[in-house]
C-alpha cells in the first residue's frame, strides 16, 4: 500500500491528465472512498487549472510538484510551485448573485475547494508557493 505519492508536472494544461491518471492509481491502491476520490480530483483540477492559467503572466516554464499523503487524520494535498504569489485563502469568494459574465473566472472552483477542505495552509518560501489542503479521507 502506498500512503504517499508525489508527481512533478510542467505548468501546461496538457500535463494535467498525468495527475488524474496518478490519482486513479493512488485511489485504487489505497481503497479511497468514492467521496474522497471525488474531492481529490476536484481540488486538484480546480487549483491546478487556476494556477496554470493565471499564475504565470510572463508565460515562463515551471515545474509544479504535487504531493498526496494519507494519515490517520485525513488526506494532505501539497502543491509547490514558483508561480506568481497566490494565497487561495484570501482569494475573492464567488458570488452567486452576480451575473455569469461578471464573475471572476476561477471563482467557482475556489469556492468549491474552500467548501470541501477542512483547512488550507499557504506559505511563501523564497520563490516557492506552498499550498496545503487538508481534507477527510
Amino acid at each position, binding site marked *: 500500500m502506498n500512503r504517499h505519492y508525489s508527481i512533478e508536472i510542467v505548468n501546461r*494544461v496538457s500535463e*494535467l*491528465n498525468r495527475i488524474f491518471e496518478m490519482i486513479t492509481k493512488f485511489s485504487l491502491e489505497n481503497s479511497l472512498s468514492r*467521496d474522497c476520490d*471525488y474531492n481529490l*480530483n*476536484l481540488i486538484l*483540477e*480546480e487549483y491546478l*487549472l487556476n494556477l496554470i492559467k493565471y499564475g504565470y503572466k510572463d508565460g515562463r516554464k515551471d515545474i509544479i510538484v504535487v504531493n498526496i499523503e494519507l494519515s490517520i487524520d485525513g488526506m494532505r494535498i501539497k502543491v509547490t510551485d514558483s508561480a506568481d504569489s497566490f494565497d487561495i485563502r484570501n482569494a475573492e469568494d*464567488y458570488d*452567486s*448573485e452576480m451575473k*455569469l459574465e461578471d464573475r471572476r473566472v*476561477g471563482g*467557482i*472552483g475556489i*469556492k*468549491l475547494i474552500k*467548501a470541501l477542505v477542512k483547512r488550507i495552509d499557504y506559505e511563501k518560501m523564497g520563490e516557492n508557493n506552498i499550498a496545503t489542503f487538508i481534507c477527510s479521507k
Partner: protein
Amino acid sequence: MLIVNETDHPDLLVIHLSGKLDFTNAEDVENSIKELINTGGKNLIINLREVSFISSSGIRVLLISVKLAESLGLKVVYTEIQEKARYLLEILGLQDQIKIAGSYDEAVKMITG
C-alpha cells in the same frame, strides 16, 4: 458522451450525458448543447444520471445552457443529478437558478406546467 433523443413532445428534446464533465470536455459539451438550443428551438431535459464527476468547468456548462435557453424563451431542466453534484450546486447557491427534477415525468411537468 452526449446522446440526444426525440420525445413524444414535439417541442422537447432529451439529452443524456455520461462520464466526467470536467475541463477536458466542458467546451465540447457546451458547444453541442448551444447548437441544439440555437438550431432546434426546443426545450431540453438533460439527464445527468451517468455523469460520474463534475467540476466547476462542467457546472458552468449547466448554468450557461440555462441562461442561453432562457434568453430564447426556452427551458432546460436537469434530471437524476447525482447526490455529490447536487451538493456542489448547493455550495455555490445555484440550486434556485438550475431546475432539477427527480424523473423524466417530473421534468416534463416542470416544462409544460
